[in-house]
């Protein structure tokens, strides 16, 4: 399934290219949401994507695992090109984990069952092995004691940590975060960010849509600013925050950093 020519070609000059988006366009009906997106993400890179609402941030990362379909351009994830081919889509979804704003845990299953479901059914892992692995990840996100509870019995922060553990159980090489802290109470944001920081330190390739600028400063290798469906600016966090190039970025930063 892996397209060898693509991997070798892209390996030149870089460690290992995990995601490549070339000239990606997307429309919702008449509305042009993504305009000529070009993005290269290397293995172990941690990228924070910010921008005003409606700028296409979520849509862009949702294109990477085909929750949204792009209409023009190429997306290549870890050597597999994203096409209409279901096998390619399945292959990519197995490699890419995703954490959502509203957690999207399965309310009819316990925390442990939430974590084991995909390894058992998609990776065909034996149940006891899947449960053992799931418990390890639940310990990593520091809630092994909640394994037998249902998501509805947990706080928002705990649910989001379970959602992170659930994604990690599939052993992904890339993690996508779609505003993971936006639906949380202020007190719970920290516990989720701490989990994400730990994950970043373990070398995971991460793409994170967030407005947590503190997180961007400490964790990200690169910050991307989007507006109107385009990538306006991307830079290392220090230069991005201290020396933004475009006026649009300056305006955005002044608005969010004022408070």
């Amino acid at each position, binding site marked *: 399934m892996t397209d060898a020519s693509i991997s070798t070609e892209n390996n030149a000059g870089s460690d290992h290219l995990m995601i490549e988006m070339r000239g990606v366009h997307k429309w919702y009906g008449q509305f042009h949401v993504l305009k000529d997106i070009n993005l290269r993400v290397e293995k172990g890179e941690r990228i924070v994507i910010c921008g005003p609402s409606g700028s296409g941030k979520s849509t862009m990362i949702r294109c990477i695992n085909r*929750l949204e379909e792009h209409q023009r351009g190429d997306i290549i994830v870890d050597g597999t090109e994203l096409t209409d081919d279901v096998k390619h889509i399945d292959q990519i979804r197995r490699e890419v984990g995703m954490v959502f704003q*509203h957690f999207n845990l*399965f309310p009819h299953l316990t925390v442990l069952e939430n974590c084991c479901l995909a390894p058992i*059914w998609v990776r065909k892992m034996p149940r006891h092995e899947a449960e053992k692995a799931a418990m390890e990840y639940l310990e990593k996100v520091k809630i092994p004691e909640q394994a037998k509870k249902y*998501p509805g019995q947990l706080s928002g922060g705990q649910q989001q940590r379970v959602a992170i553990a659930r994604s990690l159980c599939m052993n992904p090489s890339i993690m996508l975060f779609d505003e993971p802290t936006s639906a949380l109470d202020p007190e719970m944001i920290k516990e989720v960010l701490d989990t994400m920081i730990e994950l970043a330190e373990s070398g995971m390739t991460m793409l994170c849509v967030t407005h947590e600028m503190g997180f961007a400063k400490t964790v990200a290798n690169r910050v991307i600013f989007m507006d109107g469906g385009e990538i306006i600016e991307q830079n290392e966090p220090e230069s991005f925050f201290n020396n933004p190039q475009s006026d649009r970025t300056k305006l955005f930063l002044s608005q969010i950093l004022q408070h």
Partner: protein
Amino acid sequence: MSTHTPHPDLPPPLINVGLIGWLRTNLFSSWANALLTLVSMYLLYLMIPPLIDWAFIKADWVGDSREACDSGGACWVFVGVRMDQFMYGLYPASEYWRINLAGVLLVALMVPLFIKQFPWKPWLGLFIVVGYPIIVFMLFSGGVFGLEYVETSRWGGLTLTLVLSSVGMAASLPLGILLALGRRSTMPIVKSVSVVFIEFWRGVPLITVLFMSSVMLPLFLPEGTHFDKLLRAMIGIALFQSAYMAEVVRGGLAAIPKGQYEAAQALGLSFWQSTGLIILPQALKMVIPGIVNTFIALFKDTTLVLIIGLFDMLAMIQAGLADPNWLGYAIEGLMFAALVYWIFCFGMSRYSMALERKLHTGHKR
């Protein structure tokens, strides 16, 4: 710094608790409410004692002819004498044991389902849905293992009611789920076939369906094709009810947040995996009241097979009413029918409530 000492809990005023409190809040909370309570009590006083008097105190219970009914109350002797026919229809009396055996077998198979630790529950459930009906069919119709052949037109009474409704339920739920999924499908052909099917069967009265299946269908089939009347009625009921079931299930599917589909997709689950593991368990749980509602309607609708000459329990009771020896006992017969139907429907209703409680996992989202 001062220390806060919490107040001790005091008992509530007597007037708000216990019997007096209950009466005040529920029956006499206002003048209008008190008046309604008194009027209702008076109406109950007018109706209940004569009913009890007729149905129990003055009623005749034992005997074997109408001569036993001379005390002026209900004549339950009529029901007692005709009980075999109400239960088994025109089935040969010497073969009643087959129907009884099927009943005992069902109970025996169901018992382990209620034992918590029983390990083979899914397989047993599958056997009850697939294997058991085959056994029942062989047992009832005979012609194998030296059993006398009994044609389906002689099946009747409560037995027929139960056979028709359980086949209807077992067939309409899976079919309804498939139709509901089909109607929400993005594939245009699957979608239009489902929509046309649902709208057709929902738009036609069940009586028409049964008439068509028994009178019209043979006209279109080639000469000499034999197609069992009971089977035709079963298919008619199953298709008819599956259209209703589909709309009930669709309501549940529509209530599942989009995020559930996305999370399942993002984890790499296929369409059928996410439907079977994530979407349907939640959707069906949400529409248990609607499903049971449809089941109860189906159970009562089976009485309509009377018009195509199948003798379910109500038809057997009506036949009994026409017996010259027992003229004038319609009320007893119909009350018995009402009681039997009520017991089954109430049972289903209670079961569904218990199921809802059991499956509730205290969540929203």
